[in-house]
């Protein structure tokens, strides 16, 4: 019942939902690296950042994640963003030379403004990517994916399965705990607790009245869960089979390839010395490159859709 949007799986039947979770984890990491690569000039940063933003937003649209929800989850971070802005603007980077304007006697540099915009852009893109993953992947599939990546650690007797199980249970219980929190808040509000207003001391008491029942109820739940798992013969050491077998499909291959291309392209752009090309050429080249990329994604999508829904005759 809780209205939290961040990190909740939303059932849809899209290409991205159907992708292999292992692949999605790889793609997330690849795109995340691409987002966080730094460039020498701010122009470059923003052009590439903007292209990545277009790419990620179109992916969100394809996955039917509502952009409004993304901004709703960003709302929580506004204070953080504001703080970042202030610190960055008033403590400019060492190489700042271009003065934008003055506040009193303090000069505000363009570099500082760009720097904070860059951080905000990265933050937004990072959240969008994470949301893309969690909104399109069932928590259980996500842990399967993580478990798959951790498989090599089994060789050094690392309890991979146990950890994956713990993570999946933890993920499974987030919505339950949120519901529970809401219920407790309602029960305590009925007794006159005010969670939103009042003095610090009374609000502290309000929090205590929320946390203690929450703990008690979680302990109770975990005990019940452990009992019911044991009752059904769960054994962490036992060999287990899977109901759902992860498969790498053609669509996965396309997604994998595209993310690889994006990652390579960004790294390439970063390391390439543009001695031959005129500076004016660079932005156009990058825009063209990303237009091609988007085109390729669309083609891949159409192919995947056609493959999955062949025309009925």
């Amino acid at each position, binding site marked *: *019942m809780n209205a939290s949007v961040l990190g909740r799986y939303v059932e849809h039947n899209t290409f991205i939902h159907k992708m292999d979770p292992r692949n999605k984890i790889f793609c997330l990491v690849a795109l995340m690296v691409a987002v966080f690569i730094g460039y020498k000039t701010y122009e470059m940063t923003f052009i590439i950042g903007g292209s990545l933003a277009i790419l990620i937003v179109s992916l969100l649209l394809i996955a039917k994640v509502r952009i409004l929800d993304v901004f709703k989850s960003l709302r929580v971070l506004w204070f953080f963003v504001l703080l970042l802005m202030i610190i960055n603007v008033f403590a400019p980077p060492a190489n700042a030379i271009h003065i934008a304007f003055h506040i009193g006697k303090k000069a505000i540099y363009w570099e500082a403004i760009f720097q904070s915009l860059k951080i905000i852009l990265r933050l937004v893109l990072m959240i969008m990517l994470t949301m893309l993953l969690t909104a399109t992947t069932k928590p259980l599939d996500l842990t399967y994916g993580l478990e798959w990546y951790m498989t090599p650690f089994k060789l050094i007797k690392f309890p991979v399965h146990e950890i994956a199980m713990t993570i999946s249970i933890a993920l499974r219980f987030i919505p339950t705990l949120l519901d529970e929190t809401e219920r*407790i808040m309602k029960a305590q509000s*009925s*007794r*006159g607790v005010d969670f939103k207003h009042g003095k610090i001391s009374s609000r502290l008491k309000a929090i205590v*009245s929320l946390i203690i029942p929450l703990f*008690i*109820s979680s302990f109770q739940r975990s005990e019940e869960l452990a009992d019911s798992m044991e009752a059904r013969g769960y054994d962490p050491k036992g060999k287990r089979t899977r109901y759902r077998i992860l498969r790498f499909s053609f669509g996965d291959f396309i997604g994998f390839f595209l993310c690889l291309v994006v990652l390579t392209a960004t790294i390439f752009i970063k390391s390439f010395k543009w001695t031959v090309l005129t500076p004016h050429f660079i932005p156009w080249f990058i825009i063209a490159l990303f237009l091609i990329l988007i085109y390729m994604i669309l083609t891949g999508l159409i192919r995947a859709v056609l493959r999955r829904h062949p025309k009925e005759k």
Partner: protein
Amino acid sequence: MPVRFDDVFYTYQPKSPFKSEALRGVSLEIKDGSFTCIVGHTGSGKSTLIQQMNGLLIPSSGTVFVNDFTVQKSRKSLKNLHNLRKEVGIVFQFARYQLFEETIEADVAFGPMNFGVKKEEALQIAHECLQTVGIDESLYKRSPFEISGGQRRRVAIAGILALRPKILVLDEPTAGLDPRGAQEILKFFKELNDKGTTIVLVTHDINIVFEYATDVIVMNEGKLELQCSPDALFKEDVEKYSLETPLIQKTVNLCLEKGLKIDPSKIHNITELAQEIARAKK
């Protein structure tokens, strides 16, 4: 003034994929001093309905009037919620969502203290309330987590009673209690009701409705299906509202079928049933 719902709609998580309409145009009135039972399927909107009464949920559209308070979607009405919660006390189904203090008496005193009552006075009220719900004095200093489920339920009820609400709303207070505990607690609600407190009780147990209610509200899929007196309800075939026929009513029906001339309108509990049968036999 009683509780009045005026065309109340409530939607959980509007404008999201998880959107669900819980109330769809409910208008009803709960009279002062009545013992009103709310029945209906799981998911028929009973719990949503009661949470509107003390402003835990604010109607998406429509208005709820409680005594002198108005609950609706406007800033002005939201300021008064704190005081409204003193008028209407809601006891939720699970006591574990409410108890947190180190001792039982402190937990019960917590409510009044939130409304500005001094500690000594609050403890005084707590003792009174614990006595009324039948918690032994030896338990007052114990932790609320050491006692049995039934006793915990009572402590939770005492915690709300300590606010001295004019309207007491209970969400399935007998669920998970043993039959004797359930009977005791219901008798206790009846006593409170006789003293003038309005009782609103959500239940699945139709026998409770038969024996205690002065008013019945039947909910179905977020709409008010029926509001009437229990006598009027049980005259009809209640199974068409997917309710069970109460045991006493079943017995009455069987007796009538077998030709015993008893008067159903005089029967409200098991004693009266026995009396009527005895009278008819003579």
